[in-house]
């Protein structure tokens, strides 16, 4: 036995080293944080995630903080990092993870969030296939519709009508999919790529009969300004949240391009401010939103959010948020503009806020104290108030709170 002492020692060293380390030595000793409820219903903040980092003496560690506790990215196992959360950015949008669990075959390979539509009965997805060799669209819109109660999938292929007949190369992008009484609506932007940035660009609502799969109508979306001039050369048009949910309207925030300098010179196009238009899927009519809403320039004032048939505008500075609500159907203001002073919540400056559904989420910070409030976005009624806390003694808590920075919030479905 004595002659095997070297080998035995090596075996013992190898086994003891790793097992001791992973049993006792691998804990990271990072502080544990939690969003603690001070007032109201904790369910209002159940899906709220505060995004930030631990920035103390143990290195910089990205962390998510919820009412349930803190989740450090460094603590994720390989299984979580590479399998369950490999597509986390996509899975956590609008119930995608749940859809994948329920309908794995239908959801396979579907990647564009704004190409989905879902309600209680139907799940739909539209895509424009591209030729992998030439990167040109193959000239069709492929649609799949799942009946959630029967599990049956109908798939259709619709011809994508070219924007111009002059043989220009063009691309097409899907912006929204909606199911209405008259069929499935696919909002498509088609634009010439040969002479960008001034090439033609046009939005079309492709209406597909959901029973036969035939194209019922291709409705062009046209923008007419306050002076009655039809607008073209749109360089940008995005304004939507709640991509997959049913809604009757699509709001455009369009930015026009204007040529500067001589007509024939190689002038650089400049952008003029955005104007808001709303397209009704029911009527097929596009309307410029009233002047009052056009003046609420989001680039200076904050965010715009759509919830159902309402458009919320937020105006803020370091200590105040004001929320206005408009009807997309009539363009009229709904209710009074209400405002929230940070001093009403507690001390601190406004750090972040957003509207999701009918809720306004606000994060206030003063030195190491962070307060979160959830309010009814329509009325300003407070529903929840909480503060970020850490585990440990008072001294440990103070150190932990000073070692953490929060910079954003999101909703984790």
């Amino acid at each position, binding site marked *: 036995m004595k*002659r095997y002492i070297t080998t035995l020692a090596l075996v013992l060293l190898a086994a003891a*080293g790793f097992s001791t380390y992973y049993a006792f030595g691998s804990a990271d000793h990072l502080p544990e944080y939690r969003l603690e409820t001070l007032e109201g219903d904790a369910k209002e903040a159940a899906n709220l995630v505060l995004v930030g980092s631990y920035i103390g003496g143990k*290195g910089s560690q990205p962390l998510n903080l919820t009412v349930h506790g803190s989740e450090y990215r460094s603590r994720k196992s390989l299984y979580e990092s590479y399998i369950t959360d490999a597509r986390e950015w996509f899975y956590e949008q609008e119930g995608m993870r749940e859809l*994948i669990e329920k309908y794995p075959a239908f959801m*396979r*390979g579907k990647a564009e969030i704004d190409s989905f539509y879902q309600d209680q009965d139907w799940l739909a997805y539209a895509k424009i296939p591209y030729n992998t060799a030439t990167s040109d669209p193959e000239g069709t819109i492929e649609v799949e519709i799942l009946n959630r109660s029967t599990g049956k999938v109908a798939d259709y292929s619709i011809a994508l009508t070219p924007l111009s007949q002059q043989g220009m190369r063009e691309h097409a992008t899907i912006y929204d999919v909606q199911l209405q009484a008259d069929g499935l609506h696919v909002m498509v932007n088609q634009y010439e790529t040969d002479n960008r940035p001034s090439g033609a660009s046009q939005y079309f609502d492709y209406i597909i009969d959901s029973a036969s799969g035939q194209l019922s109508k291709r409705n062009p979306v046209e923008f007419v300004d306050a002076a009655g001039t039809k607008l073209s050369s749109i360089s940008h048009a995005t304004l939507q949240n709640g991509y997959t949910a049913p809604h009757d309207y699509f709001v455009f925030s369009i930015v026009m391009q204007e040529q500067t300098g001589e007509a024939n010179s190689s002038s650089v196009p400049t952008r003029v401010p955005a104007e808001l238009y709303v397209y009704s899927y029911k009527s097929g009519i596009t309307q410029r939103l009233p002047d009052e809403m056009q003046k609420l320039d989001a680039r200076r004032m904050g965010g715009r959010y759509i919830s159902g048939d309402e458009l919320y505008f937020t105006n803020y500075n370091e200590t105040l948020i004001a929320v206005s609500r408009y009807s997309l159907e009539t363009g009229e203001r709904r209710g009074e503009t209400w405002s929230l002073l940070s001093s009403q919540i507690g001390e601190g400056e406004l750090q972040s806020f957003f509207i999701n559904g009918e809720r306004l989420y606000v994060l206030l910070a003063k030195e190491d104290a962070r307060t979160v409030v959830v309010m009814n976005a329509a009325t300003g009624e407070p529903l929840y108030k909480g503060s970020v806390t850490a585990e440990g003694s008072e001294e440990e808590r103070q150190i932990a709170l000073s070692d953490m920075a929060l910079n954003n919030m999101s909703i984790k479905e």
Partner: protein
Amino acid sequence: MKFYLKLVHMEVHRFRYLLGGLMVLTLLMQFGVVLLWSLSERSIRTGPGWSEKLITYHPFSETGKLTFNEMMFNNQFWFSFPVLISIAVIAGYVFLIWYRDWLGRDTFIYRLLMLPSNRGCIYAAKLTAILLFTFGLVSFQLLLLPLEMMLFNLAIPEALRDPSYLSQAILQNQVLKVLIPGQLDAFVMAYAIGILTVLAAFTVILLERSYRVIGIGFAVIYVFVCGAALLAPITLQRPGNTASYLYPGETYSIMLALTVIIVFVSVWLSIRLLNRKITV
């Protein structure tokens, strides 16, 4: 079993001086780095003209005091150097463990192959030995780190330092954090890939020993096929890409299945070559 254990011991015995040398090199270099850096920092912080205000950014401590983590971060090369040397030596020995039996003075392999026992034991013993050397050296590093922390604490007065934790100290070093990952499943994965590589290398060696020059050609094809089989799922169906047809779990399941197949084929082929092709 007894034959296998004896062979393992023989392999460990043959490598003992080199293994001991690597351990001593690691110990001396890392202790030296800890001591020199600590004494240098201590003299700066206790010398004239020093003020706490000089440090405005201190990512390694709450207060700006010295920490073992900071020492680890600031001495990447010299701290990693003996570890990299050890990796290189073990990687070389994966080949040498076979070739020294053929190319040594007494062509020891003939004596081994003529023993009236299962030749698979020779293969298993060499694999076990490589694993023992690897895990032994990494465990030795895990043993050294707390001792180095103690040395750091002895060299730096308490008033000048903040505490550090072993797991955080490991993360500061780019080499150690690969060898000793924070999560157990990452550890299992890292070393499983290492074992797979060793198995493939053994098969390559035995192909060459069996068929000589033509065997090198077979070995190249074998390595290419193994590499392509393992990398194909992850390159064709990138798990992070939502447009991939397969879900991440499916891609990794295919990779796992292919890994098991490669392990099985490598072991089967190696033992078959040892039994059938290599003759004395």
